[in-house]
């Protein structure tokens, strides 16, 4: 049936003149351009957010909101440490830096601050009216045990101290001076002091002999995402300008920086550098290759036309389906160049091998092989698209569309465009021929003994390799950070005493009070976790939002002060009696007036903490985020909360790593499916025996690649698996070209030689990239294509034999 279909198609295509074909192709290109233009006008864009590429974590809406809130808090922040030998120099330079950042003409930063004094006033202003509801643990104990001598004595001591905070204003409103301790209890322990509104610390020195240095901290938030290349440039420029203004004022000052911006900028720099080094080498290599083969620039022009139209189809169709194009799709998707260019090489090698054919005839001759190659490649990529992973679906659509574009170019544009006569350059054809003969005659085992030895070597290699093959799906491994940036970040982390991890606790309950109670119950648990060194620190709203139950009990305890014993207390402290009545009135007025979450997060004091409190939406629970820092043992930590259905440990990095692992396995499984699908398609055309052989070469290549990765101790990731699919796809093409060519394989061998070399130049070199994901992709292609190339001549033996019989 397929043969019949083929002859109909061939008959149809052979009747159309090359000029008409070109017209068809031009129409296709123009209409695609129009569709693309319409897409672009209607707001299609290139997505740069890496998270959009990753699969959606299937979490409850509340969890998703919590994740978004935490991300929002952590993203786009940057920290700058201003280092000087003298305290006041550090403080002054930091103030200057802040002023520079705030007044920069293009406002790229917001929330430029160090110590925020107005915030402190806001907290004091918020909590003071609620002081009758606030007591520390120790105060609760003293009041419930009626330890009046201790309570009054403690107050008296503060009154006598000239260096403390006791003064007329406070005493008249809080005679036992209980409020300051409560306010201080809100502050987490940390090592920073404040001078002139600037956070200040000493810088830890590696060398005890050097004089101590001081570091002042400045914080800022980028208005736009640090991952947007434009915003990145603007922010870096603004920062650079501000810092040089500071160094112009005081040359002794130095800086350390931390924040996503610097990681992102380093990645951009790295990419640029690699594009210019690796990119240049591969471009020069490919041009040299084409020149060597055909001694003409025409094939190169044709190759560029093929690739351009291929990319055009790919981009427009992806935009049509997804409405956006992810930058990573573009990066991985360009690997289809490796296949698209094969079509071009195959065409030219055929012409070189059969100089009697014109362009139209040559395109018709290779049509069956190319069509079959297209179908199998689309099937292979289509299987990628089955994964519920937005990134992989995009790559699948992108590559499939790109290949169709290249195919259509070959069928319709080549007959007219590539009709120029080729120089009769048999040079590379001869090399390919000699190579093939060498492989077949010398390397091919001639006796049973040598074949057994080869088999044994192969099996040992595979066994050892597969045995050592490990996987590592931790997405943090995928991030490459230059040591200089990491060191600065580590120093700042030390100064800022620890920090926050990406993991956090989400506590939820069906009412505000229930949630507050949950948070209160969590507190001792987290404190013991800190004692056991499971975590370094934690930050909960609990101390800011005590439960109504606690507030009511504190209010009741203070009744003893304001209603039962006020006269004695005032007498003991020597305070004027006139303050008694206003105090009693105030106490009564405060009855039933509780600190509520809503009031707090909408106040000037609570605004900054608002992201940690999640108000119910669409019938969800109330939620609160508890931030964790310095997590040492995540597994042990998670068991602490496993019994409590109201507390969840959210670990997005872990979740994504798990998903990556899942999709790595899925991709490898899809590889097997693609293999079976290819086998089925080939059986229709070649019969089962030849089909098995055609599939065997790429399958063995994949297996050997995996083994080699194992021996190289490269832990397997999703990106290795993705590259393996490509290796398989290219391998299938090679086999197919051989199988279709039957006897005349000189041209095929050269096409394969050129295709393999160009793929190695274009993608194999990516193995030397600094970015782990790209390097993994490149390394797999490097090894995989090499094996495929080495194995490909052997197909011919079988194809010949099978064709003969």
């Amino acid at each position, binding site marked *: 049936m397929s043969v019949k279909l083929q002859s109909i198609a061939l008959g149809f295509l052979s009747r159309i003149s090359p000029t008409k074909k070109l017209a068809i192709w031009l129409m296709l290109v123009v209409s695609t351009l129009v569709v693309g233009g319409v897409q672009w006008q209607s707001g299609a864009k290139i997505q740069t957010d890496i998270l959009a590429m990753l699969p959606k974590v299937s979490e409850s809406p509340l969890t998703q909101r919590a994740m978004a809130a935490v991300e929002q808090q952590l993203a786009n922040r940057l920290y700058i440490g201003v280092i000087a030998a003298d305290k006041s120099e550090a403080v002054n330079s930091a103030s200057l830096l802040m002023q520079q950042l705030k007044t920069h003409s293009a406002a790229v930063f917001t929330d430029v601050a160090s110590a925020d004094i107005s915030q402190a006033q806001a907290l004091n202003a918020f909590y003071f009216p609620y002081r009758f509801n606030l007591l520390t643990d120790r105060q609760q104990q003293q009041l419930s045990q009626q330890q009046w001598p201790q309570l009054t004595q403690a107050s008296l001591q503060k009154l006598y101290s000239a*260096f403390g905070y006791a003064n007329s204003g406070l005493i008249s409103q809080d005679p036992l001076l209980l409020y300051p301790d409560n306010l201080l209890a809100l502050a987490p322990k940390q090592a920073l002091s404040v001078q002139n509104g600037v956070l200040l610390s000493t810088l830890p020195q590696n060398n005890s002999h050097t004089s101590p240095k001081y570091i002042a901290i400045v914080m800022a938030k980028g208005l736009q995402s640090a991952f947007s290349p434009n915003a990145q440039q603007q922010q870096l420029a603004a920062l650079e300008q501000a810092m040089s203004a500071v160094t112009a004022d005081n040359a002794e000052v130095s800086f350390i920086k931390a924040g996503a911006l610097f990681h992102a900028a380093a990645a951009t720099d790295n990419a640029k550098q690699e594009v210019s080094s690796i990119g240049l080498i591969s471009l020069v290599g490919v041009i040299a290759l084409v020149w060597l083969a055909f001694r003409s620039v025409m094939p190169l022009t044709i190759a560029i036309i093929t690739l351009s139209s291929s990319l055009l189809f790919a981009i427009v169709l992806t935009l049509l389906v997804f409405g956006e194009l992810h930058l990573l799709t573009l990066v991985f998707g360009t690997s289809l160049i490796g296949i698209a260019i094969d079509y071009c090489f195959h065409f030219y090698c055929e012409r070189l091998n059969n100089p009697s054919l014109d362009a139209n005839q040559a395109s018709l001759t290779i049509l069956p092989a190319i069509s079959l190659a297209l179908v199998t490649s689309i099937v292979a990529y289509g299987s990628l698209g089955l994964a519920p992973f937005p990134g992989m679906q995009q790559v699948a659509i992108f590559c499939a569309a790109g290949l169709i574009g290249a195919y259509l170019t070959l069928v319709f544009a080549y007959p007219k465009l590539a009709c120029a006569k080729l120089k009769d350059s048999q040079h590379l054809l001869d090399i390919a021929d000699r190579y093939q003969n060498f492989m077949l005659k010398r390397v091919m085992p001639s006796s049973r003994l040598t074949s057994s030895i080869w088999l044994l070597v192969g099996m040992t290699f595979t066994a050892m390799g597969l045995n050592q093959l490990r996987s590592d799906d931790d997405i943090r491994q995928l991030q490459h950070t230059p040591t200089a940036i990491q060191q600065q970040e580590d120093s700042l982390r030390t100064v*800022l005493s620890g920090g926050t991890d990406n993991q956090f606790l989400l506590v939820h309950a069906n009412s505000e009070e229930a949630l507050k109670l949950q948070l209160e119950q969590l507190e001792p648990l987290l404190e013991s976790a800190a004692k056991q060194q499971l975590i370094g620190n934690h930050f909960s709203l609990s101390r800011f939002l005590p439960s109504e139950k606690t507030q009511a009990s504190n209010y009741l305890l203070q009744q003893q002060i304001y209603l039962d014993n006020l006269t004695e207390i005032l007498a003991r402290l020597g305070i004027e009696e006139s303050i008694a009545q206003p105090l009693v009135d105030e106490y009564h007025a405060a009855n039933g007036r509780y600190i509520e979450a809503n009031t707090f997060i909408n106040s000037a004091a609570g605004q900054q903490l608002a992201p940690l409190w999640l108000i119910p939406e669409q019938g969800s629970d109330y939620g609160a985020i508890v931030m964790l820092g310095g997590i040492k043992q995540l597994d042990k930590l998670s068991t602490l909360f496993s019994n409590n259905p109201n507390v969840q440990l959210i670990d997005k990095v872990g979740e994504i790593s798990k998903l990556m692992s899942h999709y790595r396995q899925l991709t490898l499984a899809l590889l097997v499916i693609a293999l079976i699908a290819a086998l089925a398609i080939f059986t229709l055309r070649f019969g089962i025996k030849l089909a098995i052989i055609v599939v065997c070469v790429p399958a063995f290549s994949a297996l050997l690649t995996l083994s080699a990765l194992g021996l190289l101790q490269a832990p397997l990731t999703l990106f290795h698996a993705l590259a393996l699919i490509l290796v398989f796809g290219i391998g299938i093409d090679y086999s197919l070209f051989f199988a279709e060519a039957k006897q005349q394989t000189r041209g095929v061998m050269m096409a394969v030689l050129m295709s393999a070399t160009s793929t190695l130049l274009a993608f194999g070199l990516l193995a030397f990239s600094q970015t782990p994901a790209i390097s993994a992709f490149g390394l797999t292609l490097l090894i995989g294509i090499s094996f495929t190339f080495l194995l490909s001549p052997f197909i011919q033996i079988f194809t010949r034999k099978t064709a003969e019989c």
Partner: protein
Amino acid sequence: MRLMLLKRACQQLILLTTLLLASSASFGADNQTDFTTLFSQQASSAELEQLTQQLSPSPQAKGLFTQHRYLKVLKKPLLSHGNFVFSKQLGIVWQQQSPFSSTLILQAGKLTQIDSQGQIQVTQAQQSASTSQLSQLMPTLLNALLSGDLQTLQQHFKLSIHSATSNNPQWQLGLTPIDPMVQKAMPRLVLSGETHIQTLILFSDNQDRSRIEFSELVEQPLTEQDKARFSPAIADILRETQ
């Protein structure tokens, strides 16, 4: 490190102890001496140089103090007596002996308080935000005040001076804190003396004030017993034997 931005809100609480002073109600003017003329006179470097010479600062000192605290809401001023030991290297021991005993040991980055029940409370400035303002600033200031280290004082205060004259050997030094937070809590300080410092007056915004008089100042090197007082456990034993 990213928790910092949330913590930031709370870090500011360090300042609150001092802010409370500022936020409380003002009371009527007191009958204290008016230092307006003093604070209107910006100190020149020559005057400060002269003062340094007059003071002949010593790296250590000990003596007695008498403190009057005038608080508007109290029926009568709080009068207390005690002694102090000061060493440029070790810090300050500030021991109140009457009407009840309590000790404050201010050392670099560390504040030790011993209350009348003998309970010791140690706060490391590096650990607790609450002590930062008090324990980091006060030792530096007292150190500088007691040793007459005008350079350090100039880093933290605007200085004004009423120099000694031939018929009045007493000088007065007015100090206005530079840090706005400290200024809110303690808008003005006045230090006066002749060859030694004699009086320190601390004003607070709401017309409360403290007047500390120093006496029996000894500037000889400290004895081992004096030095031992910087170690809280021993200070505590000493306190109990007294």
